[in-house]
């Protein structure tokens, strides 16, 4: 008769607290809450824009509330963390090679950071110089 009795360790719902890498993974996934909430805030702003100038200024007024400024500071950090993880994982989805040598991930990651800096400058510059008009 078999003496086998394999023991299966239960996996607790907070499994990601036991390992640093897993904790950082859950943090990465958690950044999406801020990304989603910011989308809703922008949609709210867009709705105000449609209603007219008074509604738009009212929305801008809400954004000056310290609670909203605090939220946006945290959301900015979350979003930057998302960006860092996104850039470091982006090269994994493609296989690049030159001749018979695989190209390392590094140039692709660096390229992402360069585009990030350019995009940020362009967006900030566009608003600063009133490019909309």
């Amino acid at each position, binding site marked *: 008769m078999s*003496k*086998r*009795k*394999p*023991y*299966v*360790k239960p*996996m607790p719902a907070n*499994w*990601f607290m*036991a*390992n640093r*890498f*897993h904790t950082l*993974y859950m943090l990465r*996934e958690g950044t999406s809450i801020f990304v989603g909430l910011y989308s809703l805030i922008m949609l709210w702003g867009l709705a105000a824009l449609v209603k007219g100038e008074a509604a738009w200024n009212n929305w801008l007024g809400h954004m000056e509330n310290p609670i909203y400024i605090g939220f946006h500071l945290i959301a900015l950090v979350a979003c930057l963390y998302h960006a860092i993880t996104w850039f470091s*994982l982006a*090269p*994994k*989805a*493609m*296989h690049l*090679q030159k*001749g*018979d*040598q*695989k190209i390392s991930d590094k140039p692709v990651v660096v390229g992402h950071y360069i585009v990030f800096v350019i995009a940020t400058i362009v967006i900030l510059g566009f608003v600063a110089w009133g490019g909309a008009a």
Partner: protein
Amino acid sequence: MNSAMMRVKVQRYRPEQDDAPFMQEFEVPYADDMSIIDALHYIKDNLDGTLSYRWSCRMAICGSCGYMVNGVPKLGCKTFLRDYLNTGITVESLANFPIERDLVADIGDFVEKLEEIKPYIIRQDAVSVDDGEHLQTPAQLTRYRQYSLCINCGLCYAACPQYGLNNEFMGPAALTLLHRYNQDSRDQGRDERIDIVNAEEGVWGCTFVGYCSEVCPKGVDPASAIQQGKVESSTDFVMSKLRPRRPS
């Protein structure tokens, strides 16, 4: 640290008498070049002959000595006591696999998954042996070489929470091996494997935790193979809408 001793905590589980695993502490003599399996050998030879654990090559190629060392999947032969002087050492069997006895994990499910993806070259056209070998250029080899270095140690399964949460998921090494054959210029078996790729149990069970690639002792990078599998499956999804595949 010359004649110093070091404490090593080892997971024990004896199915005949234990209902659950427990930890047992041993003192082993410390040396700079001592690996985890050297410490386990010392325990088995001198302190407790009933300790069970797997090992074979002692040189990170057979893939049989995977354990959790302080909660991190490691090869026992490639992990040294000297790196744990400040933290102490706790050795457990590989996570996400049933515990057979002590440090021996039951990796049967992992082995079945490796077989499931048809890990061999499949040809649609029958080529006679007389026509000679299938030639491959170095550039064609580069397309899959990294993914062929896997030693089936299972560390990536112990690292993968998605496999832990749902072991229907094919998991890192099996999906990587699948990708390895699909990328091989001599292989024509993609259509026989694509259903696995496309499934929830296939690449779509992965949320890109990425820990598999971090713990892999051979630099295989399973996470990248699975990401590329997602791209391939997405392409196949679109193609199937445009031009339905004939049933096979």
